[in-house]
């Protein structure tokens, strides 16, 4: 709108513009649609109706980990890690009858998910034991799923009446850094005086994950499942990878190798929806891996 060195009355050339992205504020977060799909084609923001339900109390937690975001998404969708990574949730394999129940996946248009039963030790805080109505060991019904490549949901039902529901919105800062914006709700102990208790517990559990995830090799999940050893308990992760493959087939996956090679030479922009209608952009659109589906026709 103003270009000082041209003087106050100069006409500003059309080409003088940067990409602007669709924005929506929800759950206390500013969400940005990074891409060029028209409004009708865009995946929706994950829906968490509990957030506005007066019976639910939510806290917000943001974390930054030195990992690739997909490792964290896969971690959330992995029911078998709890027993070992989280002594708070499992028994570290001490019970001889430990196994992981068969996973029954339920797919949506933008992701998959499941619920299953896990044997859990008593809750550590007295007030949580009282608040949830579960005193000792018990069966926790828990599950998780994904929505798009970067959003996960987790449901933990520690008793019939005491439920946690959390959503994690991951922002891949770059290849080795993940910023997670989390909202964690509960339908018991709703008084905000308990917020700190829940925050402490969530951070404590998250730290257990971080300790396992940050040293993982390789940093990014292998591109082929044959380079790992996947089991039935990894079913949701496998399915998540299929969704990612599908989005890659759409031609939506960034060409990281090309970006890395051009680093310091070329600044790329994530294409915004306006690029579908106008030409003459200064910054080139970020390189994408070639999809193998017929291109989606631009609308409008």
């Amino acid at each position, binding site marked *: 709108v103003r270009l000082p060195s041209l003087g106050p009355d100069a006409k500003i050339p059309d080409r003088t513009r940067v990409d602007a992205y669709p924005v929506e504020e929800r759950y206390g977060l500013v969400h940005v649609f990074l891409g060029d799909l028209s409004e009708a084609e865009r995946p929706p923001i994950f829906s968490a109706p509990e957030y506005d339900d007066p019976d639910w109390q939510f806290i917000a937690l943001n974390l930054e980990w030195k990992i690739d975001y997909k490792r964290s998404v896969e971690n959330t969708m992995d029911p078998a890690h709890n027993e070992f990574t989280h002594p708070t949730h499992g028994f570290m394999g001490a019970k001889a009858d430990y196994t992981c129940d068969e996973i029954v996946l339920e797919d949506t248009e933008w992701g998959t998910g499941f619920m299953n039963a896990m044997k859990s030790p008593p809750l550590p805080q007295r007030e949580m034991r009282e608040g949830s109505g579960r005193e000792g060991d018990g069966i926790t019904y828990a599950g998780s799923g994904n929505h798009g490549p970067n959003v996960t949901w987790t449901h933990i039902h520690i008793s019939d009446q005491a439920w946690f529901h959390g959503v994690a919105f991951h922002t891949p800062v770059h290849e080795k850094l993940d910023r997670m914006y989390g909202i964690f709700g509960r339908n018991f102990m709703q008084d905000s005086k308990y917020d700190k208790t829940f925050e402490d517990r969530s951070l404590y559990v998250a730290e257990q994950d971080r300790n396992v995830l940050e040293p993982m090799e390789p940093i990014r999940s292998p591109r082929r499942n044959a380079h*790992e050893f*996947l089991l039935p308990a990894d079913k949701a992760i496998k399915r998540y990878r299929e969704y990612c493959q599908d989005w890659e087939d759409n031609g939506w996956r960034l060409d990281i190798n090309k970006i890395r090679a051009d680093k310091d030479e070329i600044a790329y922009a994530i294409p915004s929806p306006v690029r579908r209608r106008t030409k003459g952009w200064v910054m080139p659109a970020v390189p994408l891996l070639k999809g193998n589906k017929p291109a989606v026709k631009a609308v409008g």
Partner: protein
Amino acid sequence: MYINFWYPIATSDEVNNKKPFRAQVLGAYFVAFRDDAGGAHVLSDVCIHRGGALGKGWVRDNTVVCPYHGWRFGGDGQCTHIPSLVDEQDKPPARAKVDSYPVQEKYGIVFAFLGDLPESERPPLLEVEEYEQDGWRANNLTVFEVNAFYERSMENGLDPSHNEFVHPAQGGPVVPDLRKHPPVVEDNPWGSRFLVTFANPLENKPELMTAKHLVSDVTAGSGHVGPNGMITWIKLSADSMFSQYFFEAPVNESLTRIFFVSMRTFMLEPEMDDRLTKLNLLIAQEDIDILEELDPVRTPDSNNEEVLVPSDGGVIHYRKYLAGWRARGWRIDLKTLRAERGDRAYAIPSPARRTSRNWVLKSVPLLSS
């Protein structure tokens, strides 16, 4: 960096049967732990399930347990237990295994043979001949890290002409002697060595010496066994000698962990140990200050990209050995490794790969022979 040699992984104190020890060597991660009988084991650190670091887990019942999903691996690398298998009778499949490497524990160091050669073809571990011999005292094992490529560090040890400049407090005028008598290098099957004579470097350090040890000419030399084992000899007189052994672990392309074993025939009082260690580390720091600034970080591939002179004889021989090992197909392809870093975890191939197939992690890329 080369496969098929012995590399120091940890000090003996760092390895136990409770908490595994995780080390990076040759750019790959390894886990070391002990079984209940005290035997040390070194395995590839990457859990083949979904990439967890075994070295961040724990040791139970002679196995190392992955902290992510509790998979257990025995000293032979075979997975013995997968907790999440639905049927309790299910045995872990044969493909559920990680590489396990031959181990030798000596001089307070756990060494692993990082390569796939069968036992009869393996190069030897550099032997500390004086260890536990009459008249010799071993100083406490010292471990230190240098932000430099290990071959730069090795070549520094094989270079008699840097002493005068890098170690002014220790070195007399050496270069004139070297001009007259360049090192004569002797070749052995797995390395080379040389001796030179020059003015006593400790002549101005009388507090370290008794009068009978002071001689004006000293004999010194150095040698290497394999790409990463180095020895230096300093003979101040017939009864005052140092033999210093450097077992170098190339952590990655730009970091080296050095396990230092120093033997001596004089100043045998135990209270001299710490004083000598301090002195050795001061001298090492003078080297480190130079090595960390060398450009490029790694030695050039061709000697034409440097100007080498007769006193570099030891370095030139070392490089010939490296070229020979490269010709055998043992040199790691760093460029491919770098390009795929973060996307793919590789394993250094263990001897078992020669006899069994079906490994989850691919073998590290090697330059073709």
